């Protein structure tokens, strides 16, 4: 893996880890799963494939952000009708 891609992957991992701090099922739950997900892709050597995987991780990031927003929105809407 080239240095640049390696940096990108690590940064993505760190960002996801940080997002996991607010995960509803707990940080450890999230961290273990995240670790597994990244470890399962560790064998990738093709640069294009790695870039695809990073894109997927970015997508997951967006999804988690949306999950947090919707969870908060719903509970607030319930509280303040």
């Amino acid at each position, binding site marked *: 893996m080239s240095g640049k891609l390696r940096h990108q992957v690590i940064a993505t991992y760190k960002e996801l880890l*940080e*997002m996991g701090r607010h995960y509803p099922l707990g940080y450890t739950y999230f961290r273990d799963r995240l670790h597994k997900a990244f470890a399962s892709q560790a064998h990738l050597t093709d640069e294009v494939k790695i870039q695809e995987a990073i894109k997927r991780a970015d997508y997951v990031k967006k999804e988690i*952000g949306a999950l947090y*927003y919707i*969870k*908060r*929105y719903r*509970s607030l809407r319930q509280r303040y009708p």
Partner: protein
Amino acid sequence: MYSSQTNKCLLIDFWHSVAERESAVRGRLECLPARMSKSLRILVPVKRVIDYAIKPRVNKSQTGIDTAGVKHSLNPFDELSIEEAVRLRERKKTPVSDILAFSAGPAKCADTLRTAMAMGADRAIHVEVPEDQPLEPLGVAKLLKAVAEKEESNLVLVGKQAIDDDSGQTGQMLAGLLGWPQATQASKVEIEGETVTVTKEVDGGVDTVRARLPMIITTDLRLNEPRYASLPNIMKAKKKKIEKKTLEDYGVDGRRRLKTIKVEEPPPRKGGGKVQDVDGMISKLKELGKIWAFDVLPFPSSVSRPDGFLTLNATRSNLE
């Protein structure tokens, strides 16, 4: 002489444009402050509250809520107001020269302000207030008045309420103190030049108000979708400045005027019961003392209703 229809229209017109007229009059009287600053200087007051997902617990002495070791975060309604300020900048319709986040509270409020800056605020002011002596809405409003005047803000975007004490007063009090027009519980904000049009959700529809800058807008839940403060942005926000101030700097007295006598949890909800049939329900209601003799009511014992609702034959024979 007006016909009643014209009268009505005039009245409606009057009430709908009270805010507009007020600001127009002010514009004529003291046109300088509003005219001088063409670009928006937005003040966004934020509060650090117990996270929405956490169930608050009453402390042992029943004087308040346990806050020690509990996760805190930025008040969700304040997130909406920061997001709106950032979106106003991104829309590029009116130039936004400054987005100032402001918070008054214990030292940990700095984290809240960092989050605000990670979402897009330019700088922040933190007024240190001891944790056991929090400010009341009036105190906050007085403080915000001083800040808005000192920083020459011309738009204050404030959450409609904080989710911890649910007062929902600060924005309105601030508008009263400053003498600025206010638009509460906004679900849409449009700014063109110096005219601000705010749509608010009311029962059974929407209400549109218009006023001229400077003004105060309190944000409702459906105004926008706040962005997530991502790690890179949090890191960038660490370079932005937080000014530390005290209450004395603004000449505000933070003394409390209200005394909390007792805080209690609501009584646990009792489960419901099932009844076999209508007679069973009536006897149950009678048992609970919710109904007395129906037959004294001045309508026939059996009322046929076209809307298909269940009608009880409430005669004495049925009740006894």
